């Protein structure tokens, strides 16, 4: 048996096997790998999402699912950019992946669809809130000014989710890890709070549309909000009391928000699994 070697990530699909410098792997999920790379010039950063083929699936089914899912995500992103919703723009896409162009339909099974997106600078909201909670614990109290800053931040989260829903898209996995606070002035994001404050200025950008769908139904919208509410409750217990501000920001952002919020009350009672009607 071979001795344990250093981990080498699976090969990148064409053309990113040419990319110089090579894309760096950021995270690996069950469905996709995320890399940081560049767009068409070396100075423009971009995010590359690769959906590798799954060898345990039948090749035809595998191609169909991969294609369907990457296209779903790409269509949502393109639509949201057109509607002016803060999301990473779709830059390039390949839903067939390498080897699929063969004469007999690519039985090689290499697969590997990819999607190139705009790079969003900033920290995920989860980290921003964790820093803020750490600060609150250290100081033992929340000043009025500090509370208003958090409330304003929460309202901006609600605004962004509202803009998403107004455009006719639901996210499907709204957590504080899928929201990025893009700082107003670039370069301030990475700086740890030094003056005893957590920077909360900037725009809340929604990311990871891997489970998103086009829908304008109150039920789907309410489930998005419910999932986000649960995420706040479980990961940021100190901020849970301010979640109402998210809903307030949401309510302000589009007309149909009121009925979605009404439906949220039902969803809270029964959980996100929809009732089996029809």
């Amino acid at each position: 048996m071979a001795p344990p070697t250093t981990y080498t990530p699976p090969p990148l699909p064409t053309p990113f096997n040419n990319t110089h410098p090579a894309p760096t792997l950021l995270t690996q999920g069950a469905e996709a790998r995320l890399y940081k790379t560049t767009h068409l010039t070396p100075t423009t950063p971009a995010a590359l999402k690769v959906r590798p083929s799954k060898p345990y699936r039948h090749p035809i089914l595998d191609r169909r699912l991969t294609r369907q899912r990457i296209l779903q995500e790409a269509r949502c992103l393109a639509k949201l950019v057109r509607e002016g919703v803060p999301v990473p723009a779709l830059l390039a896409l390949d839903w067939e992946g390498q080897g699929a162009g063969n004469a007999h339909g690519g039985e090689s099974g290499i697969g590997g669809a990819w999607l190139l997106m705009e790079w969003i600078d900033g920290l995920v909201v989860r980290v921003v809130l964790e820093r803020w909670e750490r600060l609150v614990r250290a100081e033992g109290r929340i000043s009025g000014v500090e509370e208003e800053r958090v409330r304003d931040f929460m309202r901006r989260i609600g605004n962004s989710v509202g803009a998403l829903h107004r455009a006719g898209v639901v996210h499907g996995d709204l957590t504080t890890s899928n929201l990025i606070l893009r700082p107003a002035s670039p370069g301030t994001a990475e700086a740890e709070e030094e003056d005893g404050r957590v920077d909360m200025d900037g725009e809340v950008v929604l990311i990871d549309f891997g489970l998103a769908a086009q829908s304008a139904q109150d039920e789907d919208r309410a489930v998005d909000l419910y999932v986000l509410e649960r995420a706040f409750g479980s990961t940021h217990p100190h901020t849970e009391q301010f979640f109402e501000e998210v809903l307030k920001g949401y309510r302000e952002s589009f007309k149909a928000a009121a009925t979605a919020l009404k439906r949220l009350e039902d969803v809270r009672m029964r959980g996100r699994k929809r009732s089996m009607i029809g």
Partner: protein
Amino acid sequence: MSALETISIPHLPSSMPVHVALYRDVKNAPFLRQQLISGNADFEYALIDASMVLSRTHLLTAVFRAANDYLNGRLKSRNIHSEIVFSFSPTNNIADSFRKFGIADSTTDLLLVKVSVTPEITHDSVAAHLNQSIEGTPAPFDNETLSGISDVSKIKKVYKLGALGSSNPKKAAGVVHDEMKQLELSVIGAIALRGAT
């Protein structure tokens, strides 16, 4: 003086640089178009009406889409250069894409693209050929020059982005720069999604 710029796109093989030249006040567009129609191999370029191009990124996005389809053996048209013109299109109609984005007899601002798909195609060989074939004034291929050429309302129409920004009243301070950025990104999304069913 040659106006030819040679660009290497980070994701393409280093042996595949992209040569781009912009000419203004082109006098011999009908001749160039005729070479294209007759299939003269010496004139195998992507000949693009520069008024349909918003920015460097817009052009490079189309080039990259064509190059990726080329590398994967999936060209829908004759060669990588015709595919670049086709790649600008939001629809699957090749002839239509040439009518909208390709050179016309009336074209005066012209973008030429040549990809080094064989080792014989070099910066010098392309520059020499352009110098003797194009009757026009070389101009720098930069966003400033392009923004003075591009016909934004025509581009919006072709990409069906006429309503862009109107559904976004929140941006009261929405400066022109932001609107152009949104248009560019919307166009890039349309190029990426062409042919998706």
